[in-house]
C-alpha cells in the first residue's frame, strides 16, 4: 500500500492535474480560468514552432540512439575480445556510466565554448566569421547537445552491450569459427542476432532518454536558452509553462509527451518481451 500511495501522490495526482489544466485557459496570474475543451491542443499543433520542435526532437532522439549504440557496439566488440582473456579493464572503461546528464551538458558546454572550447577552435580555424556557432545557429546547437547526450549514453550502452556479448556462450562462437571463415560474416550472422534482444531494449531506453531526459543537457549548455529551433519538447514545456506562463498550453504539451511515453511502453512490452526471444 505505501507504494501505491507514493505513486498516487507523485505520479497520478500531477498527471491528473496536467490533464485537467490542459483543458483550461488560465490567465498568467492564476486568478481566473476558463474551460476551453481541446483549444490548447489545437493551438499547439497549429503552431509551426511546436511542430518544428517535435520533428527536431524526433531527429535528435534517433541520432542519439543510433550514434550512441553504434559507438558503444564498436567499443564493446573490441573490449569483449580482451575481457574473455582477463577482466581488469572493465572499471576503466565503464566509469563514464556514473556521469549525470547535467555534468555531460557542462562538459559539452566547455568543449564547445567560444572562449575556451578546444572543439570550437578546431571547427573555426579561421576565426571571423565563425563557421560553427552553436549560440546562434540551431543546427550547430543540436550538434553540441547531441554530442553531450551521445557521450553520456555511450558508456551506458557499452555496459549493456558488453554484458550481452559476454553472455553469448563461448562454445557457440567457437562453433561459428569452425563453420565460417569470415569474422565479419560471423558477427552479422551469429553475434548480432544473439545480441538483438539487448539492442532492442537499448534502442527503447536510448530513445526515451534522448526524448525526455535531455532537458538537463540543454539547460546547462545554454543557461540563457538555446537558439530558436534548438529546444526539445521537454525543454519547450518548461519554457512555455514557467517562462511564458502559458500553463494550459504547456500542460497540453505534457499530455502529448505522456502519450509518447505510453506508446514507447507499449512498444517495449509488445515487441521486446515477446518477439525477440530465443
Amino acid at each position: 500500500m505505501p507504494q501505491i500511495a507514493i505513486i498516487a501522490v507523485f505520479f497520478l495526482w500531477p498527471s491528473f492535474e496536467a490533464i485537467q489544466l490542459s483543458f483550461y485557459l488560465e490567465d498568467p496570474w492564476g486568478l481566473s480560468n476558463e474551460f476551453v475543451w481541446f483549444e490548447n491542443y489545437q493551438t499547439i499543433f497549429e503552431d509551426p514552432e511546436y511542430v518544428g520542435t517535435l520533428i527536431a526532437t524526433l531527429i535528435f532522439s534517433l541520432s542519439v540512439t543510433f550514434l550512441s549504440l553504434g559507438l558503444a557496439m564498436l567499443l564493446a566488440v573490441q573490449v569483449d575480445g580482451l575481457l574473455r582473456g582477463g577482466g581488469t579493464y572493465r572499471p576503466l572503461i565503464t566509469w563514464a556510466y556514473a556521469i549525470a546528464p547535467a555534468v555531460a551538458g557542462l562538459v559539452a558546454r566547455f568543449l564547445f565554448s567560444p572562449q575556451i572550447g578546444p572543439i570550437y577552435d578546431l571547427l573555426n580555424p579561421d576565426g571571423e566569421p565563425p563557421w560553427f556557432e552553436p549560440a546562434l545557429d540551431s543546427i550547430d546547437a543540436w550538434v553540441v547537445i547531441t554530442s553531450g547526450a551521445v557521450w553520456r549514453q555511450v558508456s551506458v550502452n557499452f555496459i549493456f552491450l558488453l554484458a550481452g556479448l559476454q553472455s553469448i556462450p563461448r562454445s557457440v562462437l567457437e562453433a561459428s569459427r569452425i563453420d565460417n571463415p569470415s569474422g565479419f560474416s560471423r558477427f552479422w550472422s551469429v553475434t548480432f542476432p544473439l545480441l538483438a534482444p539487448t539492442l532492442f531494449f537499448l534502442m527503447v531506453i536510448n530513445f526515451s532518454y534522448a526524448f525526455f531526459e535531455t532537458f538537463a543537457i540543454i539547460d546547462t549548455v545554454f543557461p540563457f536558452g538555446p537558439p530558436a529551433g534548438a529546444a526539445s519538447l521537454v525543454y519547450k514545456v518548461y519554457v512555455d509553462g514557467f517562462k511564458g506562463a502559458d500553463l494550459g498550453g504547456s500542460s497540453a504539451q505534457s499530455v502529448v509527451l505522456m502519450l509518447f511515453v505510453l506508446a514507447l511502453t507499449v512498444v517495449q512490452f509488445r515487441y521486446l518481451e515477446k518477439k525477440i526471444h530465443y
Partner: protein
Amino acid sequence: MTTLTLNSLQKTYANGTHAVRGIDLEIFDGELTVFVGPSGCGKSTLLRMIAGLEEITSGDLMLDGSRINDVEPAHRDVAMVFQNYALYPHMTVRRNMSYALQNRKVPKAEIDRRVVEAARILQLDELLERKPAQLSGGQRQRVAMGRAIVREPKLFLFDEPLSNLDAQLRAQMRVDIRKLQRQLRVTSIFVTHDQIEAMTVGDRLAVLNNGELEQIGTPMEVYSKPASEFVASFIGSPRINIVSGEVKAGTLHVDGFELPGFSQISDQPVKVGIRPEDFVLESTAKMSLQIDLVEELGSDELLYCVSPTGLDYRIRRPGGSGHKVGENITVSVISEKLHLFSSQSGKRLN
C-alpha cells in the same frame, strides 16, 4: 584418406600452466580414437588444438602430410560436436545444419540433399523447422551430430558429447555414434573422462594424464596390459587392486606371500595390480581373506575383503554365490595375471 599426426605437441598458457606436454600420436584413416583421462589431464585442450580453437605453443600438427598449426579453424576441414552442443539458438535446425555449407558456397541443391540425408540418418526429419529451444537434450545432441555430418569433413571431433545426457540416453547415443562412425568411416577423435564410454566407443584409446600420453592402444590392450599404474587404476571398473610389494631374487613378496617366477625383474620395490576378476576362489589356496561387504550387481557381485595384514581387496564373482559378510574365503591369483609397476616411475615392469 585422412591421417592426423601429432609431433611433440605442446600447450603452455600465458600464466605458465603446461596443459599439454609434448604428445606424439598418429591417428589413422577411418579410425575412432578416444582421448580419455581425468579432468584437467589436457584431453580437451589437445582436441581444441586440433580444431584450431587453441593455439599450439610448439610441435607440429600434420593433416594428410601438411602442417596445419596456423590454419584457421574453418579452413581445417574439421567438424566438432561440443559438450553443450553449441547450436545457434536463433537458427532453425535446418539453418544450423546448412550454415557451414552456405559459408563455403556449396550449391543450394547440394546443401538440401546433405541436410535431408543427415536428417534421415539421425531421425530429425520432423524437427527441421524447429529452433534449438524447442528440442529435448537428446534431439539437440542429434542436431549437433547432424551439423557435423553435413560438412563431410576430413575429421570429426567430439568433445565429451554425451556428458549432458541422462544415463540411459547416454548408453543409447554411445551405440549410435559408434554405428554412425563405422558407417561413414570418417576419422574421428572422441574426448571423454568416462572410461566405460572410452572402452565401448573407441578403436583405440589414448590415455592422458597430466598433459602426457600414458598409453595408446586398443581397449583390450589398454585393459589387459596397462603401461603404467595410472592407466591400470584409471581403466577398469570396479577398480583394480593395487598393493605394495617387493621383488627379491626373482620372487615377488606381497602381503605376506611369496610368488616365484619374476626373474626378469631386478630387485626393487614394486606396486602390484590385480584385477578384481582375476582372483580364483579355491579351498586349498593360501591367501585367506575376510568378507567385509557384499555388493550384489545382479549378474555379478563384488566382495570387499580384508587380508590378515589389514589390506583391502575388491573381488568380482558371478552373482548369486551366497557369500555372507564376515565369512572367510581363501583365494589364489595366477602370476601371469599380475601387473607389476615400478614404485618410482609407475611404469609397467612385466
